[in-house]
């Protein structure tokens, strides 16, 4: 857009910039506060509340939370479920999306309708729970993956992206003797990297943030992913339901410890974000706009 050099235009820009800067600060400050708080001692945090940069640096809280293997185990579960789940979801989502993207597939309208319909109407929590239970998935890690293996929304985004790849490319590959699997893996997927990166990030975030499936389907606390453990440590210990899990005799953990667990549960996904971020805005738009 052309630069607007009038006085009112400049005032407009300045006000707009200031407001956005404030919004950006409000967005990040809570997290900065938590990160800073996790890197100081609990005495320091109690004495000097307003830390954004700690005066006294300390790994006290991290040493404490990693002194038992509870956190390690929960992190391991989360990392494992995220890796396996993302690859699995991506694989079957891409297969289905590619199949449905091909115009010459008879019945694609029916399949499409059946997928879209699940976005409008669903059986709900209890019937889904009963299916998972009947399949014998209770207390297994697959219960965190299988029931949400395909997101209809992600599948449709990917399908729309595949549909924009010129048909000629595939036709010529076919003439060269490629079968449909070959076309998908050698031609379509390499051309769709931005979309693949985007959808992978969406899946990875969902798996990393898995909470509801865990409390629905896992009774065994040794299998808890990090999100459930985080809730135990922060939410339930914040003077809320004393009846729940933590009994009143154990004092609630220090603020610094809660903050350190929050950081540990957030950091992995924030580390992936910058690498995929440049793709996802583009990828998500391409898909969703054509919806």
């Amino acid at each position, binding site marked *: *857009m052309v630069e*607007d050099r009038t006085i009112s*235009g400049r005032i*407009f*820009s300045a006000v*707009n910039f200031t407001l*956005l800067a404030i919004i*950006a600060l409000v*967005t*990040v400050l809570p997290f900065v*506060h*938590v990160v800073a708080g996790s890197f100081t001692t609990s005495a320091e945090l*109690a004495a000097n*509340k307003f830390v954004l940069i700690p005066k006294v640096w300390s790994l006290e809280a991290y040493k404490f939370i990693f002194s038992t293997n509870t956190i390690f185990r929960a992190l391991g579960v989360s990392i494992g479920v995220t890796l396996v789940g993302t690859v699995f979801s991506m694989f079957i*989502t891409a*297969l*289905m999306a*590619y*199949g449905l993207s091909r115009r*010459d597939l008879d019945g694609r309208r029916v*399949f499409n309708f059946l997928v879209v319909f699940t976005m409008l*109407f*669903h*059986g*709900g*929590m*209890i*019937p889904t729970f*009963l*299916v998972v239970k009947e*399949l014998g998935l209770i207390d297994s890690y697959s219960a965190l993956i299988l029931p949400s*293996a*395909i997101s209809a929304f992600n*599948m449709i985004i990917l399908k729309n992206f595949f549909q924009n*790849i*010129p*048909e000629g490319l595939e036709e010529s590959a076919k003439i060269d003797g490629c079968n*449909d*699997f070959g076309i998908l893996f050698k031609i379509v997927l390499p051309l769709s990297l931005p979309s693949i990166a985007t959808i992978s990030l969406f899946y990875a975030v969902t798996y*990393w*943030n898995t*909470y*509801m499936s865990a409390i*629905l389907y896992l009774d065994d606390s040794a299998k808890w992913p990090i999100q459930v453990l985080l*809730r135990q440590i*922060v*939410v339930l210990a*914040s*003077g*809320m*339901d004393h009846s729940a899990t933590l009994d009143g005799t154990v004092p*609630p953990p220090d603020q610094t410890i*809660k903050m350190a667990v*929050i950081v540990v*549960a957030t950091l992995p996904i924030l580390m992936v*974000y910058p690498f995929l*971020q440049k793709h996802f*805005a583009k990828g998500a*738009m391409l898909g*969703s706009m054509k919806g």
Partner: protein
Amino acid sequence: MQEVTARPRTAPEPKPKRYKSSSELKKRLWRNKLLYVMLIPGVLYFIIFKYLPMYGLIISFQDYKPYQGITGSEWVGMKHFSRLFTEPDFLNILGNTLILFGMNILIYFPIPIILALMLNELRGTFFKRFFQTLVYVPHFMSWVIVVSISFVMVTMDGGIINELLAYFGFSKINFLLSPGWFRPMYIIQVIWREAGWGTIIYLASIAAIDPGLYEASRMDGAGRLRQVWHITLPAIRGVIITLFILKIGSVLDLGFEHVYLLLNSMNREVAEIIDTYVYTAGLRQGQFSYSTAIGFFKSIVGLIMVMTVNKVSKKIGEEGVY
């Protein structure tokens, strides 16, 4: 169908072909057999985890006993549904759900639009990208993390918000346990986590606006605010309406996690919503049939809402969702 073309497949769908004979169809099916193989895992997923639960909805017409299963349980007709509308508990949670939904529509919904307009007016791509990156981030944090961050900030023992209140001479507030603070906390968390992410779709449709329109309006002497009002906003009207429809369709579907995490014995009166109630009544208290009926009710209301609003939007000349 055999011609080699470079035309993208988003071109208008051709009319479904009439086949001269079933053998021609069979030939086509056979030629695409690998595509059907590709569909198998996905179709199995949708059948098992989406359509089987829909079949499972019939337990809301039964007194379902886990050991007798769907085939062995006793049929009770509409008993559980009539209970819904006579139980004061249910009417209360319906009210709570509708209030939170209303807050989502009235308070949250306009914010991403305003934010997108502001971001779009930002000069300099560096800052634009920088601010965008920052405001997207919270969307990637789980509700557990969002709720946890606010808990350590508002807790009575050493939370920064309460310390600030005390510092400025106010009395501390027990945000977590007071029913009056549940709704404000809920909507603030929704805004913090989702507002930035919500701008993506608006920014994308703003990017598609013809720059010539702005040029012309500037010739006519329109200032920045006037351009926003007369060009940008009308241009994204369709997207706003579409997203509004989707939002309306999810009227009773606020999401389980967020509210469940904020829920406690002190704020239950205002915080219990349909989703959390289904969980408590169904899985905690074992009232499978009753809570399935609640879920059924919720899904049907959602479906009716989407279809109705979609129809209305087509009537007033906008594109529908489907």
